[in-house]
């Protein structure tokens, strides 16, 4: 007899409906699995065999042929265990195939018949929705993640036996209640008001977030670079449902969400170590999985010890920084992942870390410092609009300093500035100032004559480079937006210059 069961296959974030066709008949006992299965899929034979027997069902004596259609797409992972088992039961008449109609089966099987969670459940459930499939049967541990998709009934099944019982109607169908987006709101663990002092750096972070600019923090060890970076997600605008869905899809594909509470509700904060390889950062591997930059989508990618990252890895970052997505092509797969993140880079001012410190003298030679800083290429530096220096804070300072505003207060200002930008650029197809092209800069960043004069003076006095010019313009635009001002005033330019003066100080005249 023949049976047909629905399941789903993923390639990157996108997927395709998989029909699991099972044919069971007479002949010499054998199990044939076709349809480009990978090793994990091929091994499902043994799991399915034991699971069926241990659930109190009969495994067919004769020949079993399983086809995963479409047969020309590669199938990966253990997600097909459950549909194959259900297909065998249907093909052998132990379960009426009609009862499986309208269901999609996604899950790995344990030898005792238990249903285990799989990676990538959210994009698969979204796929089910698009294919107009009414219900998905999956592991209870995957249920929370799947429950955000309105319009798909989520049926958690602890094991094969209870699933069949529910399908047959002997036991009422268990349905995981669908959840609305608001349930998922979480507070960030690190708040802006936790940072004592550092008003200058906090302000720079606010400007950076408001205009979508990348940020470079330079400071002695212990000056609070990491802490500041960690609290940046908390001042980013709240995630919309669409954004959260996109983030969750990416994280789901890597399997990071198994057993978690479903949706990623926080803006991601990713801090890969500087020994990270290009593949782990950008994405890749045989299955072309997303890398850190995609996991940081709509959030913050924090690269501490920036110059210590291998040069080729940093250079590989440049293209996704411009495009907001990355395409990974491998022999077996080709995937495009979104990678629209805010880059926060941190570095010491010199190899020993104490250049410019008032407390500890620096032990580096001029050449060492130069070599260290030259690890950051000009084009890379060019993509970071805001540079800010942080100085160390002593204990006495920490005790006495004011804490400043809470994240939500800062976020309110950021939201207002972002709204202003979205309105201004609605015809340009961009969202914030950092995305302005040179042409748009000419249109939208017009300086008042006084501000223009100030900028001119900055160039001669601070010996700024030509590339600093457009950067300062864009940052001035953001500062004006934070101020609620449509005109860019001298004060706005003056502040923006401070965020760029590091360039001439550190990368300009050092001998």
């Amino acid at each position, binding site marked *: 007899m023949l049976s047909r069961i629905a399941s789903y296959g993923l390639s990157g974030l996108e997927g395709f409906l998989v029909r699991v066709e099972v044919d069971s008949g007479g002949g010499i006992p054998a199990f044939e699995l076709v349809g480009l299965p990978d090793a994990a899929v091929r091994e499902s034979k043994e799991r399915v065999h034991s699971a069926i027997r241990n659930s109190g069902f009969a495994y067919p004596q004769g020949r079993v042929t399983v086809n995963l259609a479409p047969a020309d797409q590669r199938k990966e992972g253990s997600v097909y265990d459950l549909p194959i088992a259900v297909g065998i039961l249907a093909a052998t008449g132990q379960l009426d195939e009609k009862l499986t109609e309208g269901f999609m089966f996604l899950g790995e099987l344990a030898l005792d018949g238990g249903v285990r969670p799989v990676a990538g459940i959210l994009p698969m459930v979204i796929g089910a929705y698009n294919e107009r499939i009414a219900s998905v049967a999956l592991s209870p541990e995957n249920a929370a993640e799947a429950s955000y998709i309105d319009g798909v009934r989520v049926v958690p099944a602890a094991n094969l036996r209870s699933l069949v019982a529910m399908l047959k109607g002997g036991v009422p169908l268990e349905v995981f209640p669908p959840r609305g987006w608001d349930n998922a709101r979480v507070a960030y663990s690190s708040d802006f008001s936790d940072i004592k*002092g550092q008003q200058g750096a906090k*302000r*720079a972070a606010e400007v950076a977030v408001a205009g979508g600019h990348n940020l470079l923090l330079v400071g002695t060890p212990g000056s609070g670079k990491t802490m500041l970076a960690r609290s940046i997600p908390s001042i980013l605008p709240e995630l919309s449902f669409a954004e959260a869905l996109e983030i969750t899809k990416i994280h789901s594909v890597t399997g990071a969400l198994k057993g978690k509470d479903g949706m990623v509700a926080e803006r991601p904060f990713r801090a890969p170590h500087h020994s990270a390889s290009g593949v782990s950062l950008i994405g890749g591997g045989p299955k072309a999985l997303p890398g850190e930059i995609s996991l940081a989508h709509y959030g913050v990618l924090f690269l501490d010890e920036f110059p210590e990252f291998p040069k080729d890895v940093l250079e590989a970052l440049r293209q996704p920084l411009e495009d907001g997505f990355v395409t990974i092509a491998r022999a077996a797969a080709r995937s495009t992942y979104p990678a629209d993140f805010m880059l926060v880079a941190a570095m010491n001012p010199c190899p020993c870390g104490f250049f410019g410190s008032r407390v500890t003298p620096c032990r580096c*030679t*001029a050449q060492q410092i130069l070599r260290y800083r030259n690890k950051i290429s000009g084009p890379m530096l060019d993509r970071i609009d805001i540079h800010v220096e942080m100085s160390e804070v002593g204990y006495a300072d920490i005790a006495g300093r004011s804490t400043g505003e809470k994240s939500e207060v800062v976020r309110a200002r950021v939201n207002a500035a972002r709204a202003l930008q979205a309105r201004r650029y609605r015809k340009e197809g961009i969202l914030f100032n950092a995305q302005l092209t040179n042409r748009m800069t000419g249109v939208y960043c017009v300086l008042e004559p006084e501000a223009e004069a100030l900028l001119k003076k900055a160039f001669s*006095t601070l010996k700024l480079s030509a590339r600093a010019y457009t950067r300062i313009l864009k940052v001035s635009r953001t500062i004006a937006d934070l101020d609620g001002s449509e005109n860019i005033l001298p*004060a706005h330019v003056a502040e923006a210059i*401070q965020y760029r003066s590091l360039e001439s100080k550190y990368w300009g005249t050092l*001998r």
Partner: protein
Amino acid sequence: MKLSEKERYLFWLGVANGPGAARSRKLLEAFGDDPKAVFEAAARGDLHEHMKGDVAELMKKRASERYIERCLKRLEELDVSAATIASRAYPELLKEIYDPPVVLYYRGTLYPQLRLPVAMVGTREPSEYGRRAAVELARALAESGVCVVSGLAYGIDRAAAEGALEAKDSAYPTIAVLGSGPDVVYPEANRDVYEKVVARGAVVSEYMPGTEPKAMHFPMRNRIISGLARGVVVVEAGEKSGALITADCALEQGRDAFAVPGRLTDLKSAGTNALIRSGMAKLVQSAADILEEYGIVKRKEEKPGVDTGTLCFEEELVYRLLVPGERSFDELCELSGLSAALLNSTLTSLEFSGIIKQSPGRLFSL
């Protein structure tokens, strides 16, 4: 280049014998201080009793008028001048030392009497404090008419030359002494300063044009740095710094030594602090401390006159906070009560007015 007969043969001696000042002096003494006699003896091959055989052979080979002409022509092509110890341009002070070079090669202009030459030496890897001290001191000295002598290496050397060049009114702010030929810029990164020094002062060397810098050249060069100067200021020097050798040279040559003090914890100031402690060098806090040794009393140094009336409220507030000394951005933010945004723009405008300076670590000072 027009040379008298004596200069001509001194030049020959300097070129043919190379930079070994002691050997040249011995030869001159043996021949009654007459370079022409040395030349003729060399041509006859009579120098064997005065030097090693192979060197004598080489001198013999070089002892021809054609050789001299060729060398002079080459100098002209390279735009390098030469001053022999008998030439008018040769600095008088340098003649006083134990082993003055017989020939000095130079680019730029050289005078026998410099108004008040003071050398500045120090570590090649200065701290920001040392670098600034060197720039400020050199500028203040040059503005008072001092000619700053330095070695044009990395660090304090470069800072000294840069500071001296900042003195716009000085006609002859600085001289640099190289450990390579006068046309070889080392390190290459200092070419910008090199050109400016040539334009407004001189770059001198006892090494022939084209000579590459070698480690052994630098101690020899140090004796010329101190020899050209009335006094030597050590700005930052570790315990075993070459700058201390220059200070020793200076003391041996009867010149004065000065030292800029550093913090107790600063390894880079261990050498200068030791100089002061031992009484060998005079502690220097400002250019006036050096000038007064030579009878020049500078009028009391004033801070660049800031008319607080021209400043806006925030600018004046920040200015007053900086009067006692350096402050970080955070401290200014706390003390002034201004928002970070407002403080940023205030600092920019003060910086542009030249009233305050920013240094690494986001530190601000007047």
